[in-house]
C-alpha cells in the first residue's frame, strides 16, 4: 500500500490538471479520499466528475503515469467479492454526486449490466 499512497499524490495532481476534469472527492482536511471508508474498513473509494467520457478515458488510459499505476493495480488492490467496482453515470452540470448515489449506481450496474443510467468505460452511453 505504501507504494500506492506515494504515487497517489502524483496521480491526483495529474487529474486536477487534466483537460475536462471538474471535481474529485476528498476527505475532510485531506487532499485525497484514502481516509474515507463509507462502505467498510477494507473498501477505499474514489469518485470524480468529468466533462465527458472521452476526457476521463484520456486521463485514465492515455496518460503514461496513470496507465502504469493501473497496470500495477493488483499489487495494491483486490476486487474479489465486490461485483462491479467501477461505474459511470451522467449528472446535470453544476451538481456534485454523493457516495449514496454511487452505491446505487453500482447496484444498478450489477443488476442490469451497462445502460444509460449506469455504465462503464468499455460500454459508454451518451449524455441524455
Amino acid at each position: 500500500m505504501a507504494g500506492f499512497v506515494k504515487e497517489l499524490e502524483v496521480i491526483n495532481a495529474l487529474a486536477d490538471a487534466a483537460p475536462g476534469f471538474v471535481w474529485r472527492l476528498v476527505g475532510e482536511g485531506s487532499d485525497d479520499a484514502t481516509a474515507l471508508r463509507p462502505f467498510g474498513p477494507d473498501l477505499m473509494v474514489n469518485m470524480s466528475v468529468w466533462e465527458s467520457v472521452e476526457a476521463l478515458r484520456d486521463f485514465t488510459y492515455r496518460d503514461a503515469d496513470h496507465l502504469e499505476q493501473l497496470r500495477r493495480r493488483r499489487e495494491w488492490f483486490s476486487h474479489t467479492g465486490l461485483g462491479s467496482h467501477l461505474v459511470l453515470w451522467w449528472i446535470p452540470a453544476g451538481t456534485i454526486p454523493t457516495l449514496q448515489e454511487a452505491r446505487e449506481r453500482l447496484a444498478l450496474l450489477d443488476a442490469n449490466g451497462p445502460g444509460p443510467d449506469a455504465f462503464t468505460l468499455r460500454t459508454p452511453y451518451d449524455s441524455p
Partner: protein
Amino acid sequence: MDDLESLSLLTDPVRRSAYQAVAAAGAEPVGRDEVAAALGVGRTLAAFHLDKLVDAGLLEASYARRSGRSGPGAGRPAKLYRRSGVERAVSVPPRAYRSAAELLAEAVERAGADETLYEVARAHGRSASGADLVGEIVARGYEPVVEGDTIRLRNCPFHVLAEGFPPLVCGMNLALLSGLLEEVPGWQARLAPAPGQCCVVLSKNNSDGL
C-alpha cells in the same frame, strides 16, 4: 464490401505495393505523386489503385494543401492517403479468435489474474530474446521505427483488446516486449501511450548492446 472482397483487391501486385507504400508512412498521409514515385509507375495508375483501396476501406483519403501556401494561387488541395483504422480479417475455415480473446481478457480481469498474464507474456518474450530484436518485433505484428536510441512501435497488434482492457492488455504487451529485451543489454521497455500507436516504447539507457 465484405472482408474477403476487400482483401482480395490486394492480390494485384502494383496495388499491394501502393498499399504498402502508404502503410509505411504511418500516421503521415501521402500524396499520389509520392506513391507513384515509390512504385515507379505513372501518377494516373497510382491514383487508380489508391482510389480502389479507398473504396475497399483499406485506405482513407483526405485533402490538404501540401506546399504550405494558402489563399489565392495556392492551387487545389491534394488528395492524400493513409491506412484506414478499419480491421479486415479472413479465415478459412471460419475462426473467431477475437471473440475468444475478449472472453479470456474479461475472465482474467475478473479473476484479478493480471500478474499471471504478465508472467506468461514475459516468458514468451524471453524465449525469443536474442540477436534479431527488430525481426522478432516485426514477427509479432508491431511496426518498429528505429530513431537512434528509441524504437517506437507504430502498430498495436492487440488494438481491439487494448481498447477494451487497457491496463490488462497494455500490461501484457509491456511484459512481452520486456521479455524480448531481456537478452539485449541496455534496452528497456516502458509505457508511453500515444494515439494510433502501440502503448510501449523501447529505449536504450546506456551505450551497451545492439
